[in-house]
């Protein structure tokens, strides 16, 4: 029999046949590994989860034209640089001043389906405009013009012309049905929103847009990378980050990740203390056995190897159990906090097991040092 086989046989026997004694240490390691694995899974998944949450608070990138013309083709060209899995939505906007009851109001033409993706926080009372001839008015507009859902409103567009121009200015008025009133708590409440086609029909101007709001689910670094790439490769588009959104997202994320890391470190330290305490008790309990091993020829190195082997096997087993319990733990947290499933990260399996073994190894150092100091002549003394 090879020495290694006997070594494994000894440490396995020690753990299996003394399992009631080793249970406390095993539980400490398994719980520590569970929390480590769970928190690390959350740590790496938080940007994705929080990114999705943050997307509820509106777009985080704005496309504006660099020159005169900015069309849907330019928008598509800009969006082509963003991974489709990261792109939540992109809503084009064109603004024109119109008149309702002779009052100047800003009308925005957009794609309602895209706005639903980029601005999920909009509180829409009524039905989103879908068919031609339907509009949504902001709360501010509704209050000042006494408009409500179901009303018909005449919207007039008069083209502003330069003084002395020879061409006749466009002047058009169309009736629209108010299908919804929009509340956002922001400047959007002072706008009238309609589908792009309706605005083009009203103004007689087609093809161009003023800006696009883009919602991208990714971290700050990736966002910056997208921005730089679009600005350098799509000359007609000036892409900018919505600092108010991206900065707060980065701050919250970094604080949350720091908190998760801190808790992980504390848990690992507590695990280490618990394992060290248990192993100290184990060494004290096995002083006679250590003395005997030394008496029959074990060197200090052998004693260290055997106890470290036991500790590391315990750490490995605790780590394996912790990997799976940790994923279940992270999944439960994710479902309760983010209402979505977490992604299993295979890279965390070796990391958790290695960390468990390392923590157990460090925790065993002091007890093992005391084991090497056992004097066989003293502990084996007859009664």
């Amino acid at each position, binding site marked *: 029999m090879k020495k290694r086989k006997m070594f494994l046989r*000894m440490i396995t*026997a020690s753990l299996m046949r003394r399992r009631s004694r080793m249970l406390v240490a095993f539980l400490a390691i398994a719980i520590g590994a569970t929390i480590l694995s769970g928190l690390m899974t959350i740590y790496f998944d938080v940007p994705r989860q929080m990114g999705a949450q943050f997307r509820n608070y509106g777009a985080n990138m704005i496309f504006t034209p660099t020159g005169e013309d900015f069309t849907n083709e330019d928008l598509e060209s800009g969006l082509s640089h963003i991974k489709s899995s990261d792109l939540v939505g992109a809503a084009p906007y064109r603004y024109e001043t119109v008149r309702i009851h002779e009052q100047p109001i800003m009308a925005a033409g957009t794609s309602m389906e895209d706005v639903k993706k980029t601005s999920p926080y909009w509180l829409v009372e009524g039905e989103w405009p879908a068919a031609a001839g339907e509009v949504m008015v902001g709360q501010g507009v509704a209050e000042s013009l006494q408009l409500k859902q179901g009303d018909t409103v005449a919207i007039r567009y008069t083209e502003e012309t330069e003084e002395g121009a020879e061409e006749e200015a466009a002047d058009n008025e169309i009736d629209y049905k108010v299908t919804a009133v929009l509340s956002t708590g922001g400047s959007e409440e002072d706008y009238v929103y309609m589908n792009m086609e309706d605005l083009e029909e009203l103004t007689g101007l087609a093809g161009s847009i003023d800006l696009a709001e883009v919602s991208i689910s990714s971290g700050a670094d990736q966002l910056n990378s997208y921005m730089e790439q679009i600005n350098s490769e799509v000359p007609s588009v000036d892409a900018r980050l919505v600092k108010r959104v991206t900065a707060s997202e980065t701050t919250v994320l970094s604080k949350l990740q720091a908190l998760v890391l801190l808790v992980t470190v504390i848990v690992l330290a507590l695990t280490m203390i618990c394992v060290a305490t248990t192993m100290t008790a184990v060494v004290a309990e096995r002083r*006679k056995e250590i003395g005997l091993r030394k008496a029959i020829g074990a060197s200090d190195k052998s004693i260290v190897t055997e106890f470290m082997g036991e500790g590391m096997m315990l750490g490995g087993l605790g780590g394996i159990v912790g990997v799976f319990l940790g994923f279940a733990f992270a999944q439960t947290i994710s479902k309760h906090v983010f209402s979505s499933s977490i992604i299993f990260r295979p890279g965390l399996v070796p990391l958790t097991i290695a960390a468990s073994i390392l923590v157990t190894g460090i925790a065993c150092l002091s007890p093992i040092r005391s084991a090497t100091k056992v004097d066989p002549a003293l502990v084996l003394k007859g009664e």
Partner: protein
Amino acid sequence: MSLLELKHIYKIYGELHALDDVNLKVEKGEWVSIMGPSGSGKSTMMNIIGCMDKPSKGEVLLDGVDIARESGKNLTTIRRDKIGLIFQQFHLVNYLNALENVMLAQYYHSIPDEKEALEALDRVGLADRAKHLPSQLSGGEQQRVCVARALINHPEIILADEPTGNLDDANEETVVDLFHKLHDEGTTLIVVTHDPEVAEVAQRTVVLRNGKIHKETVNTNFTGKIRFRD
């Protein structure tokens, strides 16, 4: 040259002389008993011969090497290679079975050999109990496992400290018979005992008192067989 020679050995703890100018020679293949009351220095002498302690003064020549001058690491090697230890409390590893306990000595000495360990257990009549844990063995059986473990590496000396102290008469006889067999095979035996019946079985009995050799007697009627008194 004697296998073991103690020359003017002292072991001093403060004012106490646990061993006080002890001189002793043990020849290869000899069976020596060491007797004496508690505190006479038997255990101290055992620990020194067993390389688990060093004398304060004097020389301990084992196979010509002065083990009193060796480092702790070398003493571990000498103990592993030359000495087989048997204890009163058996001291078996409680989570290893009988076979594994014997193999443990092989593991530290050289290479574990299950077949050879099983043969050693067979020599002490315990081949059929090889897979039993110490808690499943009687005191006598545990001591026989201890004997098998002591002889597995073919040591120069078997050092037994009160080997029959925890055994009944039947098991005491079994263990002494084992010693007799080992002696017949040429093994050197040093047996520390309180029991005159066990001491008298040896070829020579050394009596310690107050750290000194008080008396040495040679058993002219040596048979290696125990004779119980009524």
